[in-house]
């Protein structure tokens, strides 16, 4: 088990996984999302190759109404 933080919540997952695999676990169209690991944006074209590791701080954001 490894421990990561996703949107401020501590989450235990079985093992390291790619960003692509991580996003497969959520019920949101991936093109509505952007991902940051440890405050750096993960370019979409690298989702399959970018591995989420123990202790990583992951942010998954979308667009909402705003002014």
């Amino acid at each position, binding site marked *: 088990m490894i421990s990561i933080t996703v949107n401020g919540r501590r989450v235990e997952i079985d093992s390291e996984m790619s960003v692509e695999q991580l996003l497969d676990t959520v019920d949101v169209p991936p093109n509505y999302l952007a991902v940051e690991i440890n405050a750096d944006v993960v370019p979409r074209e690298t989702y399959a190759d970018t591995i989420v590791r123990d202790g990583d701080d992951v*942010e998954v954001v*979308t667009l909402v109404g705003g002014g």
Partner: protein
Amino acid sequence: MSIASTSNASAETDDAPLVVGSHTLASRLIVGTGRYDTMEQMRDSLDASGSDCVTVAVRRERLYDRGGKNILDFIDLDRYTLLPNTAGCYTAADAIRAAKLGREILKTLGNPGADWVKLEVLGDSKTLLPDPAETVAACRELAADGFQVLCYTSDCPVTARRLKEAGAASVMPAGSPIGSGQGLLNPNNLRIILEYLKEDDPDYPVIIDAGVGTASDVSQAFELGGDAVLLNTAIAHARDPVLMAKAMKHAAIAGRHAYRAGRIPKRLYGTASSPAEGVISTRPYGSNA
């Protein structure tokens, strides 16, 4: 005149379109997408406003308790250029992160708004007034990173000048605090900002952002010489948002027409519209009084 010519503030006239950086917008009204009761009401209000550019915010996705709808299902991405903002950020570093995240989503969506950002770095959560030092720092860094930065700022002319120097594609002074509905509290400062930023650079876009309460505020912003107006709450929290969106559209047209037409100077005394000659009446105080 074609049917399409009634769709927005610029197309109704021979007015030039609004140009901000590499973006050309048909309407001079930019509207926000926040604070509506429903997504449907937002969609209909955007439509009624005649705008072709709408702002959006970047927020954490509710990954674990998702029951809501995504705003992107209610915005026609072929019709609107999205302008992502950095609302809610209090440091340059956070605003830069938000800008980059927004860009990543818009790139994926294929929306032309991927290369610009509405920079908003707040200094105080009660007044929502911007932090000028953090805003200038973030503007400089984002501009260097290739963003076209539209900077929300106060009505301070000195800060406005600093932001333009820092590379802002547009400076967007507030009429009054965000969501306050107080209108344009210091038109004199806005006049000075327009004079400073457009001196030797008349096409530099200055957008009046925040504080609009009702339609006359929008007209006033254009009458002062503002190139565009950005507003959200004045529509979203009106009793009838769709009707207010229509009012804002017409106010933008009216104010812009009036600015281009040129207002008459204010005079202390009356000047008669009807001829002074040939009147059948007598004057109680003589001919010169």
